[in-house]
C-alpha cells in the first residue's frame, strides 16, 4: 500500500472528530501493522471496493466512545450497548466516506459498517495489503486507524476478498 493513500484517511479522521465531536486529535507515528489484533475493544470496519480494495478499521477506546455518545447523542452512556455500536459504525462510515471522496481515481464504494466488540477480536486484512496503522490521542483517550488499500493489478474476480473474523 502506498503511503500517499493514507493522508485522506488521516485528514478524514481528524475532520470527523473535529466537526461532529469538537474533539481535537493528535496524530502519532505511522507504522506498519504487524498483528491482526486491534489495540482497542471496539472496532468499526468498512470494506472498500472499486479499482482498489481494502479495509478501514477505526478502533477506539471505550471511554472515547462514551464521550462521543455524550456529544453526538446527548446521552450519558457508560456501557457498550447498541447505541455505542451504532455510533462507532457511523464514525467509521464517515471517515471512510470522506477519505474515499479524496481518492476519486479509484471510484471506490464503501460497504455498510460492521462493528466488532470485545477483547482480542481479530480483523483479517487481505494478505497482499498489509495495513498501515495510525494512532491518535484525544482528550478522551486513544484510538487507532488501520487502513489496507490495494490497487487492482489483475481482474477483480481474481482478488482475494477482505475478510472479517
Amino acid at each position, binding site marked *: 500500500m502506498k503511503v500517499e493513500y493514507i493522508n485522506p484517511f488521516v485528514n478524514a479522521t481528524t475532520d470527523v472528530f473535529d466537526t461532529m465531536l469538537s474533539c481535537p486529535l493528535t496524530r502519532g507515528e505511522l507504522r506498519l501493522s504487524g498483528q491482526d489484533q486491534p489495540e482497542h475493544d471496539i472496532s468499526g470496519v468498512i470494506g472498500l471496493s472499486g479499482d482498489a480494495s481494502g479495509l478501514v478499521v477505526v478502533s477506539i477506546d471505550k471511554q472515547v466512545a462514551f464521550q462521543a455518545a455524550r456529544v*453526538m447523542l446527548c446521552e450519558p452512556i457508560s456501557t457498550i450497548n*447498541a447505541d455505542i455500536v451504532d455510533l462507532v459504525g457511523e464514525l467509521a462510515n464517515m471517515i471512510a466516506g470522506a477519505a474515499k471522496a479524496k481518492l476519486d481515481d479509484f471510484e471506490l464504494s464503501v460497504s455498510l459498517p460492521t462493528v466488532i466488540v470485545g477483547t482480542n477480536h481479530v480483523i483479517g486484512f487481505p494478505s497482499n495489503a498489509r495495513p498501515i496503522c495510525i494512532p491518535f490521542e484525544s482528550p478522551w483517550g486513544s484510538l487507532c486507524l488501520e487502513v489496507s488499500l490495494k490497487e487492482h493489478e489483475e481482474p477483480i474476480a481474481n482478488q482475494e476478498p477482505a475478510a472479517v473474523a
Partner: protein
Amino acid sequence: MIMSAKVLVADDSGTMRKIIIRSLNAVGVTDVTEAADGAEALLKFAEEQFDLVLTDWNMPEKTGLEVIEGIRGQGSKVPIVMITTEAEQRRVLDAIRAGVSDYLVKPFQADQLREKIDKLVSV
C-alpha cells in the same frame, strides 16, 4: 408554519437519525417519522404525506438514490435532502439527476443542517 411540517428521516444509523431529529427539533419541527432503511422509507412515504424528506445514501434494502427515484416516480415534488458521505461530483450529479433538492455531506456542522431544514420547511 415550520412547526406543522411533517418530516421523514431515513438513515440506517440510529445515531445519525438522533442528530438529524435534534436539528429538526431545534427549528421547531417535532412531527418526524423515522425509517431505518430505504425500503421502509418508501413504505412510510406511501402511507403518509410529508413536507420534507431527509435521506442517507448508503442504506440496506434500498439506497437513498432509489428512495429519491421512488418518490419522484410517484410524481411527488416534496423537497428531498440527501445527507451522505458520498461527496464525489459524479455521485452528486447522480442525485441531482434522480431529483434531489439539496445535498449535505457528512461530516457536517449542526448549523449547516439546521439552515437547510429551515430554508426548505419555510418555503
